[in-house]
């Protein structure tokens, strides 16, 4: 920690807030929402809230959760965050089968497609790997130690993703960089062979996902960034195939009447399974933008904007399953000046199943609260309460925005200010 100069005295010490996160089981058997240190899971299949079983005493996570994810087969679930703990859960029993300690705060997690390895990235740019090969069913694992796998030199890793064929692991950081590394047979010895770097973003990269179909099983990588673009990449060469300036292309700037103020960061994106649609969350947008990817022409285009009417809902996290629903959450932890310790609002958009290639015009509709699978019981579990105060959500969106820019945007100082900061450095030796 001591190597990163902390912001002191200049910005008032804002309590670090974390955006709410959502993850859906690949077959939509359950949904998980993380707000602050709280992990909430609802079993859609059984229609009931899940109580987590964790043998370590006290709450499972003691600080904000920064990453949650289901494994590709849906048997495992991983949660990790600022408390430097990576928890691996069995989704059958929802028992924590393994807790791995990290040296630093964890910023991203990924599971290998075969479910044998869990990877997590820390805020110092190191990606670690834990093997799970002796995991059988619900039996608790012996304590596991993580091995360092690769490193982005001292840059916060924002996203971690395995390629659909499992041959590569892709990591994105706040220094505009996306690295594609060969995932070998023995990853515990480290990943040394870099396949490519995908370079082109001009701000931090916030999210990664793969678009792939049965005709294009390798797929292409899509990335969202603080430069307000979504880009399409060929990971084997690292070449940039297309760039979509989401905000201006979708005509959001004009409609909002803030033509001068562009560059709202892309905060999250997710691809619709077996399809070519990409759902994109943008920091200022009450709703989502749907992009369509033409895999043969290797281009991205705006399919439509799905706006959410009737409430101030700016999603902080998106997730999909094979069932044709897009799950979204908006919310934040530790919001100041608010009665609720943490806020979360879950919304769902339907109409993705048939829409893939043949009819992108297929109607996407925002479901009402009573139309959501699991209904009120699900919302009560995941949101914490059924009703939510509208005004708080605008404040929450603002808090998420500030937290994200504090975390990921490089601070710019004027020449004088830089001088002053140099002079007041606390690591300077005092001459006797």
């Amino acid at each position, binding site marked *: 920690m*001591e*190597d*990163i*100069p902390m912001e002191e005295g200049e910005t008032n010490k804002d309590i670090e807030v974390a955006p709410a996160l959502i993850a859906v089981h690949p077959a939509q058997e359950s949904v998980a929402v993380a707000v602050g240190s709280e992990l909430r899971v609802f079993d859609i299949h059984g229609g009931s809230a899940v109580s987590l079983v964790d043998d370590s005493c006290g709450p499972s996570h003691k600080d904000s959760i920064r990453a949650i994810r289901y494994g590709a087969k849906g048997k495992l679930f991983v949660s990790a965050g600022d408390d430097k703990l990576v928890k691996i859960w069995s989704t059958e029993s929802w028992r924590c089968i393994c807790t791995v300690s990290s040296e630093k705060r964890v910023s991203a997690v990924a599971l290998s497609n075969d479910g044998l390895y869990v990877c997590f990235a820390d805020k110092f740019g*190191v990606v670690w790997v834990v093997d799970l090969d002796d995991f059988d069913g619900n039996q608790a694992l012996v304590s596991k130690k993580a091995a*360092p796998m*690769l*490193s982005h*030199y*001292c*840059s916060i890793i924002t996203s971690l993703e395995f390629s659909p064929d499992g041959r590569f692991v892709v990591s994105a950081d706040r*220094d*505009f*960089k996306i*690295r594609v*590394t060969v995932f070998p047979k023995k990853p515990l*010895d*480290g*990943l*040394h*062979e*870099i396949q*490519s*770097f995908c*370079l*082109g973003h*001009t701000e931090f990269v916030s999210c990664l996902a793969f678009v792939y179909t049965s005709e294009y099983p390798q797929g292409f990588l899509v990335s969202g960034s603080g430069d307000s673009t979504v880009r399409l990449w060929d990971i084997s060469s*690292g070449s940039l195939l297309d760039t979509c300036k989401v905000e201006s292309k979708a005509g959001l700037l004009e409609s909002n009447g803030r033509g001068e103020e562009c560059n709202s960061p892309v905060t999250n994106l997710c691809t619709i399974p077996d399809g070519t649609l990409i759902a994109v969350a943008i920091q200022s947008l009450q709703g989502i933008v749907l992009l369509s990817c033409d895999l043969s022409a290797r281009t991205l285009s705006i399919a439509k904007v799905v706006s959410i009417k009737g409430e101030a809902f700016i999603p902080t996290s998106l997730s999909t399953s094979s069932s044709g629903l897009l799950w979204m959450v908006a919310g934040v932890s530790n919001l100041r000046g608010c009665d609720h310790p943490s806020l979360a609002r879950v919304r769902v958009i339907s109409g993705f199943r048939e829409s893939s290639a043949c009819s992108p015009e297929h109607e996407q509709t925002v479901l009402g609260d009573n139309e959501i699978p699991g209904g009120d019981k699900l919302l009560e579990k995941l949101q914490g309460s059924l009703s939510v105060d509208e005004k708080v959500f605008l404040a929450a969106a603002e808090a998420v925005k500030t937290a994200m820019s504090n975390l990921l945007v*490089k*601070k*710019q*100082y004027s020449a004088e200010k830089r001088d002053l900061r140099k002079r007041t450095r606390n690591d300077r030796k005092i001459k006797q």
Partner: protein
Amino acid sequence: MLENKANPTISKSTGLPRKRFYRARAHSNPLSDSHFPIPISPCQVDYSLHYPQLFPSSDKIDGAKKIQFADVGCGFGGLLISLSTLFPETLMIGMELRDKVTEYVKERILALRVGNPGQYQNISVVRTNSMKYIPNYFEKGQLSKMFFLFPDPHFKEKNHRRRVISTHLLDEYAYCLGVGGIIYTITDVEELGEWMKACLESHPLFEALTKEELEVDPVVKLLTSATEEGQKVARNGGQTFQAVYRRVMPSL
């Protein structure tokens, strides 16, 4: 050159910049945020700025020559200048984090170009943090030689991750080096010498050069004789520790 007569930072007899006017801290923190411009990708490195005689316009020509040697932490540029005449057909670049030192090397190269028409057109220097941004400058397999001469030893264990040679950074250097490319390291600090050797030895993409190969490589001799640091060590009768390794294909 006329106005240089009044400029005290340029030596009157040689026309070269005088080092005393470019004093800088010996150390720089590679972990801190950088605020200098960085090319977004290797194709955006403007060769016409670095090698104006060889690249008269900034338009990219396909198949044009690319930089092949990188001197990481080039310091005052002694090695580059020796290599320039030894490999006149090869483009090379020095990378240095300290602003003032970079300025000095820039002036030195410009003065050498003026004093020796037609020569020193193949070397240049850039201020950058190579530990963070090396893939922004070089494509996969673009380089054939990389130099890490007398790097900052960072003795404290807590600062070991600031060392320019480490297992994880070697992954990136292996990416930039073509198969067969050579990485040269040298230091006068025994502990660091062992560290660098151990990192290279255990890395699956590098293999040590044999004694015979080292003897016939003209560059190896320059490691100690051409650099300012090397000369200083020789003057004081100090020892140096070198490790020279070749980039190899990964074994399956």
